[in-house]
């Protein structure tokens, strides 16, 4: 699999086994390239897995990267570049951010500093994407675990919402 091919779309459930496999891939990438942090994020900006040693706060970074990823996809479409730009690089003085497409609606954010060479990060990120491909193949088949959202959860959530935000007012 290359950056350019997107055979699978990430479904909405990630199981423990898949999560462990993804974490192994991300940890290996972090170790080999001595990077600060690496995140696997879906198109909605939700973090699926992260290896974040001394890296940045994650939720905001993921939301911004998802916007950047989606914007680059739209730019590619406007320029008739298909399927999309495989990577986006933000090059800074001390920190760099590398965003690489993994699947149709999923990408990696790699944050690395001056101690890591961009070429090496690119090579090993590509390898990580190849390793992640089988995980996405399985993911499409995974159902949501029973009881994840049920009547009991909804009742408890409603009570918590009232505690957190106060009861409904006029």
């Amino acid at each position, binding site marked *: 699999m290359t950056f350019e091919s997107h055979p699978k779309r990430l479904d909405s459930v990630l199981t423990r086994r898949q999560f462990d496999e993804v974490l192994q891939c991300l940890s290996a990438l972090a170790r080999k390239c001595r990077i600060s942090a690496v995140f696997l994020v879906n198109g*909605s900006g939700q973090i699926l897995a992260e290896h974040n040693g001394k890296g940045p706060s994650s939720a905001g970074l993921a939301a911004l990267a998802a916007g950047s990823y989606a*914007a680059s996809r739209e730019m590619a479409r406007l320029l008739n570049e298909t399927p999309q730009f495989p990577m986006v690089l933000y090059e800074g003085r001390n920190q760099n951010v590398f965003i690489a497409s993994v699947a149709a609606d999923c990408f990696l954010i790699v944050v690395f500093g001056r101690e890591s060479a961009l070429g090496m990060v690119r090579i090993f990120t590509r390898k990580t994407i190849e390793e992640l491909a089988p995980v996405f193949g399985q993911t499409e088949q995974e159902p949501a675990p029973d009881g*994840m959202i049920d009547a009991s959860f909804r009742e408890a959530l409603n009570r918590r919402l009232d505690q957190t935000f106060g009861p409904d007012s006029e």
Partner: protein
Amino acid sequence: MFIHAALNEIHLKIVYYGPGLSGKTANLEYVYRHIDPSLKGDMISLTSREDRTIFFDFLQLEVGHIDGKKPKFNLYTVPGQIHYDLTRKIVLSGVDSIIFVADSQKARMEDNINTLLDLEKHLIQDGKTLEEFPWILQYNKRDLPDCETLDTLNHRLNFYNIPFFEAAATQGKGVFNTLKASIKEVVAHAHARLGETRRMRA
């Protein structure tokens, strides 16, 4: 919706949609300023020099563990100005629920309607419809003079008879009511979707 079974997390994306200057960012800012710091992340706003949203505002909200599970709500706004059409499409990617923030002032009715049509266009492009998608209405700026009556607003905008809320977002009125209702709506919808998926697999 994304379910992280390994971490017992449920991620849901809620987008505030509406015409320019209807008060989408004001809603999010009020939530950010008035919620327990332990339940929120940083608020991110991508704005122009004139402080208008050009991409989105973002705030991640949590309400702790519920029945052993941890729901996380990713709140976004879209830029309301007409020429940010593609940007709105991007922000809507993967959306689970929409809060349509309408401007109650009489002079803004056409803008409300045009923006609602714009939303419907984007949903249809993504295989969804306003009729079946979970969304709620907020009639904002009720504190200003020259507002439309609720009857008129409902007649022109609420053609699917969805839940609606009055608000004055800059003062916080109706902000939490709207958000709570949206969360309940999106979770109810997710519950139904999961049940449907299970029945199809059985």
